């Protein structure tokens, strides 16, 4: 067994199961957002996504508790997931491939996943910010700005919840699979559409607004073509501000996992101080929009 460099909130083990290499995904201490799915439900979302034709690692089995923590096994997919490496030389067509997968995700019938819930996103992040117990007036300012300009929501769909580079397996031929379904929930599809545009997910390639790999327009056009949903480029701004706010709050709550002893880690600790990056970006976006 080999521990892989998995996500910040889950362990990932490469396991040899009778000659077949599978990936065992196991819970670590604590969660990033309060709305994180238990692994049993995440496994079900993965199955539903596969049924809907979304490119995902084949879900093998839900394993129950392993050493006191939930786990499931899925296909170990070959390819690159590190954002910094993908943006260096993205395969051609990755932008529209992202749009096509997202359109398929948003077509998963919600009744297939009856445990998924949707909540008022602003109330949710306000609660999470309160749980941190530290004053962040910049985040409050973002919440107030978003409240005042809240758009008429589009009909709710199944959302991936963390649709961005870092959770996408990529080969030189293009998109191979989508990972990390733990934040799946119901909501306005624009939330997923705008999330990979957030600056933190451009991995240093700031000139390419779509995840450091392309422009927004071809991606959005392909999505609109596939879904018939009328989302315009200017509709993304509200969700981009929200995305930065979400990641600012997420960085604070992650650092609390270290501070409260759930999972001691210098990686988590530092995030508490890097929340300021997302605070600055959200103020910058607001200033540019109101300017």
């Amino acid at each position, binding site marked *: 067994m080999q*521990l892989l460099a998995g996500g910040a909130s889950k362990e990932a083990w490469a396991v040899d199961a009778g000659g077949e290499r599978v990936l065992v995904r196991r819970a670590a201490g604590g969660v990033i957002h309060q709305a994180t799915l238990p692994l049993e439900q995440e496994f079900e979302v993965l199955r539903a996504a596969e049924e809907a034709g979304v490119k995902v690692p084949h879900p093998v089995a839900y394993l129950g508790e392993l050493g006191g923590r939930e786990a499931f096994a899925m296909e170990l997919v070959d390819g690159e997931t590190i954002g910094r490496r993908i943006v260096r030389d993205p395969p051609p067509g990755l932008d529209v491939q992202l749009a096509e997968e997202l359109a398929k995700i948003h077509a998963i019938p919600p009744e297939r996943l009856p445990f998924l819930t949707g909540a008022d996103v602003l109330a949710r992040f306000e609660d999470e910010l309160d749980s941190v117990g530290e004053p962040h007036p*910049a985040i409050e300012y973002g919440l107030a700005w978003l409240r005042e300009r809240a758009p008429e929501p589009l009909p709710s769909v199944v959302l991936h919840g963390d649709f961005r580079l870092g959770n996408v397996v990529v080969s030189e031929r293009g998109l191979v699979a989508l990972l990390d379904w733990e934040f799946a929930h119901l909501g306005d599809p624009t939330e997923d559409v705008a999330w990979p545009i957030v600056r933190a997910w451009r991995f240093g390639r700031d000139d390419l607004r779509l995840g450091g790999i392309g422009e927004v327009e071809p991606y959005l056009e392909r999505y609109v073509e596939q879904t018939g949903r009328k989302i315009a480029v200017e509709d993304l701004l509200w969700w981009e501000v929200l995305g930065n706010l979400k990641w600012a709050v997420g960085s604070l709550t992650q650092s609390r996992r270290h501070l409260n002893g759930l999972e001691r880690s210098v990686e988590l600790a530092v995030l508490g*101080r890097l929340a*300021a*990056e997302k605070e600055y970006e959200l103020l910058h976006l607001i200033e540019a929009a109101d300017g």
Partner: protein
Amino acid sequence: MADRPDAGELLEAVLEFLAAEVLPNAADQRQKFRTLVAMNALGIARRELESDEETLSADELRDLAARIRGGDIPDDALRLLKQHVAAKLRVANPEYLRLYE
């Protein structure tokens, strides 16, 4: 405490140790990444020790946060908040601010 090395110099010594001896011998990508994160953490601590940034006090931050939550947003809030967050970033990640120049 007048004795040397002072806190900043101690942090610098650990940083140099991590850079010269731990980083080149990292067993895998994961350990290399974590070592870089640890060095970054020490860098933040060192900049904080050396910083003479005029930042808002905890009380001022709490008051401002509560005012904004209550809908009573000061006219110059955006300007003030950008200054405040920029001051935090000069300690936490000065490189990041260059993206906006």
